[in-house]
């Protein structure tokens, strides 16, 4: 039962991914002009004359004069073989540029998600069980502050505090000496030393949101008849709480993987700029501004794929957690 559900669900992602790739390619093509017009404009600004014939030649060479569907086909068939094309701006294969940044983005997103859960889960339960207590009010207030504060502002404040009071090196994800170094254990340790600042910054608002969600869900579940039944069995209050209402309040929690993932990656752009993180966000923005279509396309496609995979993971987790979904 569970297996057929998972297989079905995976099969469904295939047409979905196809649609996503089509839409992302169309989105990149949507702004008027192409990379060459932007290129020509940049050159013109700096006073250089551009030879129209040379532009035409380039356009033909890159295949930019061909119809949409042909361009799409060329691109997607390459992608399927692992070839994401060449970045116009960087004059390098796209795959060289993106993998490390994507990996760091995913790493950051996952850490933030874990951080969010670790904070939101116990606090959410606490503030539901001790509804309207002093503790609940304090947590709620902090939660609303976390929701209301923009991430970049928090980033600036934390950076200021870090530099001025602790003298810490707060920019980026690595210390100077490791920035260009190949991966090693020492580099991983260095990453762990740096990653907590962006994790805290990015995690604050989503934790605050999750605390509210957990609290509301649990409050709904706490008065359900099955809780009374469990109490009438003689279970202790804590065991009862964890086994029954919390278990049922978890569903929306798990669903958050689906939406938290893309939000963390795309929403992190401004924070990534402020903290100069070597993640995908800043590069994507730059690629979009320069109409560097293959680079931008690769990013968007990967982000969308991640979203789809996130949804898939959360659906499978939900099915594991809740038999009602499994058996539908």
């Amino acid at each position, binding site marked *: 039962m569970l297996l057929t559900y998972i297989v079905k669900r995976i099969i*469904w992602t295939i047409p979905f991914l196809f649609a996503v790739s089509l839409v992302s390619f169309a989105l990149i093509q949507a702004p008027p002009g192409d990379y060459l017009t932007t290129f020509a404009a940049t050159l013109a600004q700096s006073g250089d004359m551009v030879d129209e014939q040379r532009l035409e030649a380039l356009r033909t060479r890159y295949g930019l004069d061909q119809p949409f569907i042909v361009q799409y086909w060329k691109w997607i068939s390459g992608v399927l073989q692992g070839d994401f094309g060449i970045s116009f701006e960087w004059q390098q294969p796209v795959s060289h540029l993106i993998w490390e940044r994507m990996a760091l983005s995913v790493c950051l997103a996952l850490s933030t998600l874990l951080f969010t859960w670790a904070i939101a889960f116990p606090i959410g339960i606490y503030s539901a069980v001790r509804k309207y207590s002093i503790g609940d009010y304090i947590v709620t207030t902090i939660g609303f502050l976390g929701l209301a504060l923009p991430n970049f502002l928090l980033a600036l404040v934390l950076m200021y505090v870090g530099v001025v009071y602790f003298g810490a090196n707060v920019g980026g994800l690595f210390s100077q000496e490791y920035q260009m170094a190949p991966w090693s254990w020492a580099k991983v340790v260095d990453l762990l030393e740096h990653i907590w600042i962006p994790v805290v910054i990015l995690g604050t608002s989503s934790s605050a949101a999750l605390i509210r969600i957990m609290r509301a869900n649990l409050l709904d579940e706490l008065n359900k*008849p099955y809780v*009374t*039944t*469990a*109490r009438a*069995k003689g279970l202790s209050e804590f065991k009862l709480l964890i086994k*029954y209402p919390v*278990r049922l309040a978890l569903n929306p929690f798990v669903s958050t993987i689906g939406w938290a993932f893309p939000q963390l990656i795309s929403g992190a752009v401004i924070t990534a700029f402020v903290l100069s993180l070597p993640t995908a966000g800043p590069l994507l923005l730059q690629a979009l501004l320069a109409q560097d279509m293959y680079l931008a396309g690769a990013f968007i496609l990967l982000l969308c794929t991640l979203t789809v995979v996130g949804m898939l993971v959360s659906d499978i987790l939900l099915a594991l957690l809740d038999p009602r979904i499994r058996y539908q």
Partner: protein
Amino acid sequence: MATVTPLRPKPLAQRAEAPVVLEVEGLVTAFPTRHGLFKAVDDVSFALEAGRTLCVVGESGSGKSVTARSILQIVDTPGRIVEGRILLHRHRTSRGKGSDDTVDLASLEPRSNAIRAIRGRDIAMIFQEPMSSLSPVHTIGNQIGEVIRLHEHVSKKAARARSIELLRQVEIPTPETAVDRYTFEFSGGMRQRAMIAMSLACNPSVLIADEPTTALDVTTQAEILGLIKRLQDDHGMAVMFITHDMGVVAEIADAIVVMRHGKLVERGSVEKIFFEPQHDYTKMLLQAVLDLDRPSERRLERRAVQPLGPPVVEIRNLTKHFDLRHGLFKRKGHVLKALDDVDLALRMGENLGIVGESGSGKTTLGRCLLRVHDPSGGAMLYHGANGVTADVATAKGAELAAVRRDIRMIFQDPFASLNPRMNVAQIVGEPLLVSGIASGADLRKRVGELLDLVGLPANAMERYPHAFSGGQRQRIGIARAIALEPRVIVADEATSALDVSLRTQVLDLLLDLQERLGLSFIFISHDISVIRYFCDRVAVMYRGQVVEVGETEDVCNDPQHGYTKALLSAVPHPDPRHRGMLGRHRYQAGA
């Protein structure tokens, strides 16, 4: 008052002295509110005897559930026991060790280990709604095994074996596989059986059952009551059975406690309460039940003066299939025939009852008539006041709108069917406003008239639904239904959520409106007594088909179809001398 036959009843069973297992003395359970303490249970005393059943009877809000929960100290916060004693005489149970071992449960802390050791072990409880009272995400075996492992030091394997044995005791088929299944895979009756198995896990000496059969069909109810009785005989439990249904009380009770507004009104043996009730409230409760168990005199008088007219709705070969196929590769054959070739006619001024179990298609029929569902086949001819006949099954646009103005609905749940954010004037006036018939001062005047028709004061207009009791809310729902001067009203379980004493009032109101406005009713109910009171003819539905149609009295007194016989014999009679349910008919399709 229609008195019960003045014959002295014979004793129901030869009763030997039975040991008192649990005593409740002067119990007061209160909830602090802004206006001080609200006593949900106020000075209640009774005793439970081993092997005997005590029925606690009362209408909603009488405090019977809170009493039960007080015994286990599981009253919802912020309620708590303020006064009184709850003595559990353990030495008189099978668990006793001979010496005097009496615990005062009222003195124990609700979170203490002492009370937790008693919950589920000495005293077990089963609840009303078997769906929501069991966790949907844990298997049956997990939930039963949990109680066993909680109170006895046994291995998981042993607990599982015991769970299977318990499921077998409560007659769940193939208990070896059922133990690993989830509650939503069971029917309502099966869930309640699983719940009972769970409560019996540790051989309790007291079983508290809080309306355990209220959410079930009569046939399932009869089976569950039989099961509880059999288990009680086997285990010698004292049973405290909470219900509002006097029929059930008559069927199972040895002793009765009548409660009202948190106070104990009257207590005594079943014979004493049924045949020599002392208190007016007890008399009223019994009378309300008796009133319902026969045709309304008023309806019969009216029919004698004004015979029924020509058909106003004719349903021909109506079918409705629900497609249960889903998923990527649609498999064939998963079709639920909710309505299977139904033929019915409703005459002008007639009350047509539709009775059947849940899942029999009676609600689907009502919804098809209002085109909430589109039928899969067949016709529903509606003969309008202007002589035009419309087929409701296929009507569209203006034609459908016209039909919907003439056929209105009254819903079951008076709480859920009224928008809590709208006041009564808005609720009742909405159909008038939407169809552009009245607005402004004209609308208010019309709403006032409607409220007057259903017996509500005009000042009700400004208030919101939560300010009204269940019976009053149902009146609001009725006012809304008659706002557009319809000709046909479909009432889907319109009185099921109401207390017995209110049912007759609402039914009389509907009869009154029928007289004044010339209405015809399609009255959907699972409750035979209500149908008997209100309906001229009754159609019995079973698995999407109408198995029997006829004059209500004929069908009730001389049922022809096997299913009708089974249904009628499962209805508990409010007379303890006729405990007939256990020897009832059973009906299996195809048998």
